[in-house]
């Protein structure tokens, strides 16, 4: 179990072992007096290789294990976890959870999922693709990526290095309703960060690819080149004067813009009334042409899963239909707090698809005309309770649909409520590297603060 590279894939046997541990834990919790319990057991294995300036810099082997248990004594709850799968430690962990549940108070919303919602079928999602790469091969691949970037332009004169990350995770979940489910998935990443310098100073940028199956990777050379293009393009960045103008988010930035919406309609923000989108189901949030759906069963999808972290079956469903918020994002606890049913989102969303438009990035730039193309956001200036939004930004000033010059050290500000309502277009340039799948997004107008 110490290396991901094994002659023989033992994951089936490992999953069985984890399922046995999870089932044993819930049995033990019952034996110690819990009326209900659930448990998850997991193993994560990985190899991470870093190279810099053509030489290996780090080789890390990772193996993380864990068991977590939640017990209920009536409507009282306690949780505990341990990284030690030894039976004695597991027993102590269950005892810790029980000890906590003896001190917490009755919460009517506590408890396991509604049994009628538990997954009974387990579609094959094609998530398991172990990558049989040795550290030596990973080092060569990292050097190849970095070399392609360094060779791209003489102004690339330094590097923050390239990395090759191989990961595999195995999880089992069991509860006292008799549910037991296992999942296994792999996730691999290639990335590189480069530094360019000219008389205007230094700039750093990066690029990466992330996949379930190594054969789906973009070529090493293309990742290096893309990082180099991005880095060099930032040289000579200027500030802007304070103004209001249209803003276009590239797909990887648009993802965070969609992410704020997902957080604002998630159960935890709603039952605390800590979201600007409380009481918005059935109301328009986006323009009437926009659709956002959750698709949990996309083969090899980054967020694909047959059941959520409480065993509830996941299924395709609308989140935004014709611009109207169709539902919230709920696990059992927040659903009960709101008098609703779980949407199979305990532990978060699966794959979220923002329906793409027809424009590629060049066409989106023409559609914007003159405004700001944002390629990077900085800082945490987003308040979900009010929707107030103010973040550091860098990117490019665009004139008449053409990139004019790079910009930095500016902020963009607005309110998410207005920003969502005034989305002008979604591009066709969907970024496949995450569980939130969106193209670039054009907003009508934001305030830019600068010089």
């Amino acid at each position, binding site marked *: 179990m*110490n290396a991901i590279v094994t002659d023989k894939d033992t994951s089936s046997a490992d999953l069985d072992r984890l399922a046995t541990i999870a089932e044993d834990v819930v049995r033990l919790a019952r034996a110690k007096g819990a009326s209900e319990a659930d448990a998850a057991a997991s193993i994560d294995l990985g190899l991470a290789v870093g190279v810099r300036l053509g*030489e*290996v*810099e780090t*080789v*890390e*082997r*990772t*193996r*993380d294990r864990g068991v977590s248990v939640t017990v209920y004594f009536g409507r009282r*709850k*306690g*949780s*505990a*976890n*341990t*990284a*030690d799968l030894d039976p004695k*430690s597991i027993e*102590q*962990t269950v005892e810790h*959870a029980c*000890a*906590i*549940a003896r*001190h*917490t*108070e*009755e*919460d009517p919303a506590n408890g396991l999922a509604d049994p009628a919602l538990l997954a009974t079928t387990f579609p094959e999602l094609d998530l398991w693709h172990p990558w049989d790469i040795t550290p030596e091969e990973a080092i060569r691949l990292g050097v190849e990526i970095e070399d392609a970037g360094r060779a791209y332009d003489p102004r690339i004169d*330094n590097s*923050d290095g390239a990395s090759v990350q191989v990961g595999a995770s195995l999880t089992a979940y069991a509860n006292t309703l008799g549910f037991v489910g296992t999942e296994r998935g792999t996730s691999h990443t290639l990335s590189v960060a480069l*530094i360019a310098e000219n008389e205007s*100073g*230094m*700039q*750093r940028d990066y690029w990466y690819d992330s996949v379930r199956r190594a054969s789906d990777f973009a070529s090493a050379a293309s990742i290096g080149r893309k990082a180099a293009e991005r880095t060099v393009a930032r040289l000579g*960045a200027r500030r802007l004067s*304070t103004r*209001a103008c249209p803003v276009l988010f590239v797909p990887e930035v648009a993802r965070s813009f969609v992410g704020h919406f997902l957080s604002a309609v998630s159960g935890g923000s709603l039952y*605390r*009334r*800590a979201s600007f989108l409380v009481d918005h189901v059935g109301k328009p949030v986006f323009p009437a042409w926009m659709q956002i759906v959750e698709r949990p069963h996309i083969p090899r999808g980054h967020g694909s899963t047959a059941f959520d972290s409480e065993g509830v079956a996941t299924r395709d469903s609308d989140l935004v239909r014709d611009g109207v918020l169709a539902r919230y994002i709920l696990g059992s606890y927040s659903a009960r707090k709101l008098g609703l049913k779980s949407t199979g989102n305990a532990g978060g969303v699966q794959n979220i698809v923002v329906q793409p438009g027809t424009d590629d990035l060049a066409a989106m730039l023409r559609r914007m005309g003159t405004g700001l193309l944002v390629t990077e956001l900085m*800082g945490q*200036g987003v*308040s979900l309770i009010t929707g*107030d939004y*103010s*973040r*550091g930004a860098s990117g490019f000033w665009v004139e008449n649909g053409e990139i004019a010059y790079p910009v930095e*050290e500016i*902020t*963009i*500000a*607005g*309110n998410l409520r207005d920003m969502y309502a005034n989305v002008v277009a979604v591009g066709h340039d969907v970024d496949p590297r995450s569980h939130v799948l969106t193209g670039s997004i054009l907003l009508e107008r934001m*305030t830019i*603060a*600068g*010089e």
Partner: protein
Amino acid sequence: MSNLIAVAERQLLSPGGLATRDLDGVFARLMGPSIDAADLYFQHSRSESWVLEDGIVKDGSHSIEQGVGVRALSGEKAGFAYSDEIVLPALVEAAGSARAIAQAGANGVGKPLAIAASRALYAPVDPIDSLSNEAKIAVLREVDATCRAADPRVKQVIVSIAAALDTVLIAHSDGTLAADVRPLVRMNVQVIAEANGRRESGSSGGGGRYTFPELLENGRAHAFAREAVRAALVNLDAVPAPAGNMPVVLGPGWPGVLLHEAIGHGFEGDFNRKETSAFAGMLGERVAADGVTVVDDGTLAGRRGSLSIDDEGTPTNCTVLVENGVMKGYMQDKLNARLMGMRSTGNGRRESFAHLPMPRMTNTYMLPGERDPQEIIASVKRGLYAVNFGGGQVDITNGKFTFSASEAYLIEDGKVTRPVKGATLIGSGADVLKRVSMIGNDLRLDEGVGVCGKDGQSVPVGVGQPTLRIDGMTVGGTAA
């Protein structure tokens, strides 16, 4: 120290049938040809947290993690492996994986381990057991009651307390054998207030390397409660923040996150060795206005960012980063110090045994000046007075950094007038401290809630500063 070694040995090594004398044998396997240095980091962590929400203590959790990280260094290369089982076969296997990094180089030999001298900045007591569970529940309820009694507009209160005890044993091929037992406690209070259909939140909290009774001394928990309510109510009246470049007065304490982002990260040894920092090669040059002196000080007793020894066994220091406006020093771990021909400053830190150490900050703050804070505010015709912040972020290569105000006010004609909504401030590390024109006499450190993230690793840190006037920063509001 030898007492701590005994405690750590009992906690970490004895259960797996190991003793410190066995570690020389592990080093014999780790070192060999072409390895310059190697270290073992044994860690046991226990933590507990409790949460009150909706007026009831609804959740609690307990967590145990332990393991050993094994690192072998060859020139700039690091091989790293870890195991969650602290037994000899696992150590030997991890040592084999870690040392595979080296193919050629100097023939290193480990020095015999000797206990390193150091001073303790906190008592090796388990804060989890420093208060009974009943008393912890009672504290949560009292804080909830204080918040709700403070104002009828308070609609939701979330209070959490957390405690952790880290026991570490560090053995390095340079002969260092060191141990540390690190308590850490924290309380957080978040309040949501509502009036006229408008909702706002406010939060507060604090903690450090001590026990719950010390955290609760002098009514501090109730002070957190009142502060969270006050912040939420102020925000209920906030108007849109201004947009553009203007003078900014930063309050004392937590606004020191400015220093953490604007210069702190850029002064970390790794970025300077690799020359990827905007401050690379600038030792001895002016990076801030006259009168600006900034230190990173891991030696303050009981502070959240303090450590008796860092995660490589080096005693922490008070390192001068900027003295009277001139760049004086880097923060170093052993690897980067060796490669740059310097000494470790005791800033080698790691999130856990499962992570590689790197240069990290401890408590970073600016020394006080002589100005009365009121005089500083009065000097501004039109500007922003920002007294509390959320997080920040920096691009160390171009030096651009942001930090987001969570409580700020307009200054008009030398007076603090209306509260404004949160806004992000953005600047350039290389010039923002050159625009410090007034330094207050009111140095304050933060309450002890900071977490710093770097390369995916989180560590507790502290910040601090006196009231400062900066002549011109970009304020990211929406009002023109």
